[in-house]
């Protein structure tokens, strides 16, 4: 299937033919993707550099352990594996769309492109849920000598080390009644918010089961910026890929490629889409696995 003997004998640089045996657009797409690989690479390497400069870094299995509809269950890696498989499958449907284009099969191109778009949108939906969950999630964190409820943002990281029980006991006394009420409510749903709001601070303190209370210190701040920055940049690539695929779908539908006589545009979008999948392999590696 690959290059045969005849191809090696060809004098590629003697003129009159493309020395890379590719048309201009596809070659330039390859070079764009190469430069984009360096952009992503620079981001990920900078993340690695910061991570290596820290004594402590949050364990991804502690950070990413939620699944839609599973409440507070501890399911490390489950949701991100769903996202990974969505992207692999959409990559396969894109290969099939490109192959249909090779054969000039318009119906095939439309069918497989449509599935690729569905996959891309599903991935974006998953990412939106994940971001929303991380930003709005409230975790009891030791901050300025008191317990505060914070989510993962670019300015605070709630995934530090577990705080010592003695420190937590002191911090509880300094915390606001609203926070205490929230902790009690998280541990024991038998009281309504109204009841809790009417209780004194001492009452609330007495109701907190400190053995079950896991308070963390704040972790490295850079974590949030890198996570949202890099997964956001990747998500932006997925988004633009979906838009490009939609444009290609419309063009295929209108018969533009049939009139041109070739489906090379589908090959170029295919390259871009596979690159998005390729980058995810490394984002997945750097943020979720190691």
């Amino acid at each position: 299937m690959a290059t045969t003997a005849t191809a090696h004998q060809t004098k590629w640089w003697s003129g009159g033919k493309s020395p890379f045996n590719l048309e201009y657009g596809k070659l330039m797409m390859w070079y764009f993707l190469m430069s984009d690989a360096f952009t992503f690479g620079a981001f990920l390497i900078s993340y690695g550099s910061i991570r290596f400069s820290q004594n402590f870094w949050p364990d991804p299995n502690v950070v990413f352990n939620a699944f839609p509809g599973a409440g507070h269950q501890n399911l490390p890696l489950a949701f991100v594996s769903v996202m990974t498989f969505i992207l692999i499958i959409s990559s396969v449907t894109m290969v099939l769309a490109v192959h249909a284009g090779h054969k000039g099969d318009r119906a095939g191109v439309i069918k497989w492109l449509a599935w690729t778009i569905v996959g891309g949108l599903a991935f974006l939906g998953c990412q939106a849920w994940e971001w929303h969950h991380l930003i709005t999630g409230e975790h009891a964190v030791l901050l300025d000598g008191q317990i505060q409820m914070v989510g993962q943002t670019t300015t605070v990281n709630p995934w530090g080390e577990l705080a010592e029980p003695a420190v937590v006991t002191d911090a509880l006394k300094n915390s606001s009644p609203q926070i205490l009420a929230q902790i009690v409510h998280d541990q024991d749903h038998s009281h309504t918010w109204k009841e809790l709001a009417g209780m004194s601070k001492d009452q609330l303190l007495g109701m907190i089961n400190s053995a079950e209370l896991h308070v963390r210190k704040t972790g490295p701040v850079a974590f949030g910026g890198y996570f949202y920055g890099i997964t956001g940049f990747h998500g932006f690539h997925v988004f633009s890929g979906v838009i490009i695929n939609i444009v290609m779908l419309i063009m295929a539908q209108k018969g533009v490629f049939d009139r041109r006589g070739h489906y090379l545009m589908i090959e170029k979008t295919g390259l871009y889409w596979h690159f998005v999948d390729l980058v995810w392999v490394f984002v997945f590696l750097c943020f979720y696995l190691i």
Partner: protein
Amino acid sequence: MQHPAFEEVSYHHHTDDAEFKKRVRKTTILLSVITVIELGIGLAIYTIHKGENPSELLVLMFKGMVCILSLAKAYYIVSVFMHLGDEIRNMIMTIVVPLLLFIWFIAAFIIDGNSYKNLRNRYDKHFQESTTPKGHHKAAEEKPAEPAKSEKQ
């Protein structure tokens, strides 16, 4: 088979339908299997961290394995899905050779980060004391109702 649009593209690959389908199916299965293995290793690292005496060396080995598996995945995506493996040698080299820059790029910046940490730990004792984990294995003992934990007791 003449190229429909560009005469300059002179050499054409023959894509047999059955062979193509076989190849795509094989690659899909391969990518899925590698991903499942990666997830398994991820969970293994999680379990090691949760254990009494987490072995740093074992964790490092597992992390190295995931890195190699990811590179394998990248190879299959680029070579089969993006058809780079089917292009002529000239073309493959102009893409792959510049990417070798990553070897220096990764090594240099990670070593730099590590050296910064070492210097800071030596000269900034407050940084060292306030950020060094005291009991790393405690970090994962978060959820009370873990089946693994009840087995231990």
